[in-house]
């Protein structure tokens, strides 16, 4: 279980996070949404232990994140970033093997190599494992990164080192530059992990995706928690309109896949800008392909 208590962060005299307390539900798909500059990335950096908060505490189970070593944290949680470009040419499988590095000494064990194969299979990249990472498409690269972070927190009965719900998968806008197939694939694999008992925490931009996948939704605005719910499809229209500064309309009731909301800019002052709706995305079932 990961919990932030009264966390504040200040950078350049600006209060980026202002007394935020959140408890990520164990074994659930937690989603954080919010407009640009709301403090989502900072929240994630604090929650993952990469940045110490200026005030408040971060808890992993019954321990403080600040008490955990970087290696202990690396075994408890993994983070999928938007894009990772290795400095030198590497085959895809070596990138995935890096995910096992917190678990072995100088050389990977046989089990580590097995896990690499398992997760590559799971994300559907097994046949491309020897291909140079740099020559893969953006979507395929993200699948390989997903395999890497899965390998990092992979738990199995053969070598169980802790409870699965205590293992957290963080996703930092993982679908920002992906087409709809890869978006659904990445989030679908994360949902499957949730089904196995892992805790998932994702920062997402697309509100329709957020409603589609979230068990627990948090809306961040100006460094504060503006809204929190265990029924993401019931977020009031007014909250979204206020936080994102748009006109929002609920398209249909929960139950289907894809679009719940459509959005448009406010009024006459925006007339120069063409009306943009966000309702055409989605429709495919949320299961991983391959």
């Amino acid at each position, binding site marked *: 279980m990961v919990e932030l208590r009264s966390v504040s962060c200040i950078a350049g005299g600006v209060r980026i996070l202002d007394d935020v307390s959140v408890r990520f539900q164990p074994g659930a798909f937690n989603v954080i949404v919010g407009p640009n500059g709301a403090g989502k990335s900072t929240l994630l950096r604090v929650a993952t232990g*990469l940045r110490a908060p200026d005030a408040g505490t971060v808890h992993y189970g019954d321990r403080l994140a600040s008490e955990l*070593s*970087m290696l202990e*944290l690396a075994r408890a949680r993994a983070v999928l970033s938007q894009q990772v470009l*290795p*400095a*030198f040419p*590497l085959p895809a499988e070596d990138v995935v093997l890096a995910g096992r*590095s917190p678990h072995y000494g*100088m050389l990977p064990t046989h089990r580590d190599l097995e896990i690499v194969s398992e997760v590559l299979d799971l994300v559907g990249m097994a046949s491309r494992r020897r291909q140079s990472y740099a020559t893969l498409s953006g979507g395929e690269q993200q699948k390989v990164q997903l395999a890497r972070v899965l390998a990092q927190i992979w738990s199995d009965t053969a070598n169980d080192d802790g409870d699965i719900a205590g293992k957290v998968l963080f996703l930092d806008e993982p679908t920002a530059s992906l087409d709809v197939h890869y978006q659904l694939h990445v989030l679908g694999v994360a949902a499957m992990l949730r089904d196995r008992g892992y805790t998932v925490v994702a920062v997402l931009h697309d509100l329709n995706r957020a409603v589609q996948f979230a068990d627990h939704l948090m809306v961040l605005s100006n460094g504060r928690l503006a809204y929190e719910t265990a029924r993401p499809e019931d977020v009031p229209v007014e909250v979204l309109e206020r936080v994102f500064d748009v006109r929002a309309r609920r398209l249909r009731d929960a139950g289907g896949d894809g679009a719940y909301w459509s959005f448009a800019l406010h009024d006459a002052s925006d007339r120069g800008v063409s009306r943009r709706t966000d309702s055409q995305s989605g429709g495919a079932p949320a299961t991983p392909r391959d």
Partner: protein
Amino acid sequence: MLKALSFGRVQWLLAIGLSGALLLSAAVGAFSFTPAAMVRHIAHALGWGALSTSDTLARNVFQQLRLPRVLLTALTGAVLGVSGTVMQGIFRNPIVEPGLVGTSAGAAFGASLVFVYGGALAAPTVIGSLVVPVMAFIGALAATALVYRLATRFEKVDVITLLLAGIAVNAVCAAGTGFLSFVARDPQARNITFWSLGTFTTATWRGVLLVGTVFIPCYALTLRDAKALNVLMLGEDEAAYLGVDPRRLVRRLLVLNTLMVAVATAMTGVIAFLGLVVPHMLRRMRSSDYRFLLPASALFGAALMSVIDVVARVIIRPAELPIGVITAIVGAPVFLAILLRQERDGVARHG
């Protein structure tokens, strides 16, 4: 092809190549030695057999000049090969080498200070003989740390910033060394000039011992970070997420590296581009995996430096070419090729 061989096999091949290069380096020169003669001289040095008195000159040349030169050349090659490999990992960029990021120039400046002003300090005692390497280390560390700071100011290492920072710091160090050679009296000034292109002609057993004692522990400690260097390839944040503290790793490796480069530079002068060519060729030959690169770069660096030294000795016999002239002729085109490829990939990535 090499790609299909295991890391161990490639390393065996490199070790065999290094043995050949060492033999060649020991045999060729103003004096040539047959394998049988070399065995006799080495056996004699170890006290295993007497030589006829007519052999005395050849024996002295071999034991006091040739052998230390062969070993210092190989050690320096290993130092520069490993250093280039590690520094590229630290800076996360394949154009980096000790000559580019100021390490060599800083070491040269520090050592020149002692040559010109520290005559009394650098007395021929044990302590005195350490003054030059220590000053070289201080100069090298200051220059390298400054370039690293400037180049990594914005999270990611930007090639342009890196190049500019390297140029600026190198220019300052070169200006300092140039000033020193200007105010110095002969023969110090000539020494500085010759030494700025690198040379193994002044190799002594003391130099071999010094470089060897510094290289071996530094290298052993560096080997332990092979896994961490692999993780750092993914970026500083990703390394931190995987349990590797990037700041501490970089600081540790920067000190170890600078130390061995500075001591080698203090003994041999500035030798550019070897640290660039070695990791580049090894990556193309086999892999970017540091568990392979770190052992392989020591073997390959030593072998390549030995061969280059043989060429320097032979090409304008009986005179000798400064080593840095040859490494620059070989290395500069490789440097340009890498730079151009990076530029092209960068464009493709953004476009």
